[in-house]
């Protein structure tokens, strides 16, 4: 079967894309910025962080660009006043939810959450900090999990399951009580399933997963393998 090519408008400019492409893919291809956090090319799309919401003419609902397929003559808007305001609130919510103290964080300067805040010119937040009590798991020989900096994007869970096929990580609890756990909530260092491949550490957008021995701002994540994720995933199919 041949794949059709469709034309659509993004921010009043005309573009074309294959019919199986998402709005995000077409936008990125043409350097139209749409912010994302939970999305990572090569992993299954989640549609959870809601940063990539866009407006589509003809529907009152906001649609996540990462999972919305393009349609012929679709008219997409990515930077409306409403969208920017909601994106700011989402980033504010993430900051208020955990305990994000950039000045003492290993990922300071290399953090995707911090970058999003900078892109949206967020220098303070209106929401009260929730200051949750979360325990650090430093039981692994090479890495540490600091849930205080976790934004529950579940990239670690997906890469571990979909690419490494270890499924060491998963979620426990519901709603605001959700947390990432290793195996059945056992210390990470005792996990018989973890292969210590470090993929989760390097695709974690914040300093929630980091290599031991790194001090403030020292944790730069090596993302050079990211390009291969989609290839690995394709092969798996």
């Amino acid at each position, binding site marked *: 079967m041949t794949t059709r090519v469709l034309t659509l408008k993004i921010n009043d400019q005309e573009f074309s894309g294959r019919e199986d492409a998402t709005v995000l893919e077409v936008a990125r291809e043409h350097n139209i910025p749409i912010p994302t956090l939970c999305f990572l090319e090569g992993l299954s799309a989640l549609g959870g962080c809601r940063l990539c919401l866009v407006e589509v003419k003809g529907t009152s609902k*906001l649609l996540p660009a990462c999972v919305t397929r393009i349609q012929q003559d679709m008219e997409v808007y990515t930077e409306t006043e409403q969208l920017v305001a909601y994106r700011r609130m989402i980033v504010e*919510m993430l900051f208020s939810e955990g305990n994000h103290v950039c000045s003492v964080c290993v990922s300071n300067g290399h953090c995707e959450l911090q970058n999003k805040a900078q892109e949206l010119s967020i220098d303070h937040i209106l929401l009260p900090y929730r200051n949750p009590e979360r325990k650090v798991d430093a039981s692994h020989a090479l890495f540490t999990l600091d849930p205080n900096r976790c934004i529950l994007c579940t990239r670690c869970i997906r890469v571990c399951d979909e690419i490494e096929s270890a499924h060491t990580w998963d979620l426990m609890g519901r709603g605001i009580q959700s947390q990432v756990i290793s195996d059945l909530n056992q210390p990470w260092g005792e996990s018989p399933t973890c292969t210590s491949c470090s993929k989760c550490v390097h695709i974690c957008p914040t300093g929630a997963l980091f290599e031991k021995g790194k001090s403030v701002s020292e944790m730069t994540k090596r993302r050079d393998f990211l390009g291969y994720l989609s290839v690995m995933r394709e092969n798996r199919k």
Partner: protein
Amino acid sequence: MIVEELNKIAVDERQEQAQFNHHLFVCSGTACLSAHSDEIKIAFEHEVEQRGLGKMCAITGGGCRGLCAKGPMVSVEPTGILYQGVKLGDVPEILDSLGKEPVNHLQADLNAHFYQKQHRIVLEYSGKLDPERIESYIAAGGYNALAKALTEMTPVEVIDQVTRSGLRGRGGAGYSTGLKWNTVAKAQSAQKYIICNGDEGDPGAFMDRSVMEDYPFRVLEGVTIAAYAVGASQGFLYVRAEYPLAVKRLKSAIRQAEKRGLLGTSILGTAFSFDVEIRLGAGAFVCGEETALIASIEGKRGTPRPRPPFPAEHGLWGEPTLNNNVETYANIAPILQNGGDWYAAIGTEKSKGTKVFALSGRIVNTGLIEVPMGMTVREIVEHIGGGIPDGRKFKAVQTGGPSGGCIPEQYLDTPVDYDSLLPLGTYMGSGGMIVMDDTSCMVDVARYFMEFCMTESCGKCVPCRVGTAHMYDLLDKITRGEATLGDLELLEKLADMVSKTSLCGLGQGAPNPVKSTLRYFRDEYLAHIVDKVCPAGVCKIHHDKEGVLQ
């Protein structure tokens, strides 16, 4: 089994029932059971045996008669006399009265608005059937609709009747059932699935529980007809584990239907085969959302996923899946038997048929009712519901559960259907109606529903996970009398953002109780914030306006 055998079962059962001069149905629904109707049934059986009446008087556990507040209920057939509030001591008196004058002081007034204003289709045989025996259902005309569909109609004709009936999804969203069936029927796949959503979870809602408990066979019949219409071979009944009686009866119903050849291979001797399994929900409210429900059946964490693709194309294990609510399926058999046009003649222009509601809260007649679409809120609350007890004043009705809103007094004459309540900022929902009087604080009500949404949020998307927690904190702060007008502004901003950006219906609907109470009872919010008083006297506020400890 073939159709002739079905008729034979009906004839045999009716003959057997005709041997008895009197047939007593003791309600065995959850509400009456909690009032010890099981003990009353045993007492009846014991007394009948002692008196040697076993050959002329049958005692059976029956279904819900609706007036749950006045249980246990006992109905006497064929006279149709209904007794309410029956106690163990009343058993001999009722037996004495059989064939004579009824026991006046226990008799329910069947001419009362509560019974007269209702129109029962889903709850048609209420209280006059044994929910645990398939023969009882068949004798009342059960499975005739399935027989008609399988032997006289093509799947297209079945869908056509459902479409003509105008039936819309009873889970609350109100999507056209015929259209949904049509979509699944047209999907091309060797394997299709049927799901019956029995994960009713709105606070104050117990419609589907009663339907599953009282008419398990009718739900199964509807599901089987749907499977024939869309071409599915496997069905799943997703029932929450908190409904043990419904689960027990559905399990037994599946077993009996299989034994009688009404489920399984070549149903009623035709080429159509269909199997049904039960899946238990583990207590998550969000699993009532169809994509979360599908994930849960697949054995995954019950979280929703973005739609499209819709389950009709890409559902269970990626196959086309038809998902309807319990009450929707319970409407199918009567629609096929009487025709789609018959059903479409009931109700309003855009909302056809009847709807089952669970009345609860501050109302005289707490219970289960079924009324034609388009009946006004006032008729439901004041006439059928009997109004507010203890001479208190009506304040509002909450419909649509945690995703709905309240209807204040000035809108009591609004008709209840899918569309009329939307301009009021609420919706009909799945059928829960919680009545509140002047002893309820609306800020406290909003806080209660927000707490529910916060704890039931799955946590997948940021606005629902974090937003509901912030909104709960703010509402809690208001009820403590510690909030400022700035907090109120933030609350409204969050309410807008969470409803606009959340992934599924839970998050999108979560701010509705806040928006609705703010729209009609803003003065109560301001009283908490500015004057530091709770007008209804519900919230404990410890400081006065000047911050002095009271």
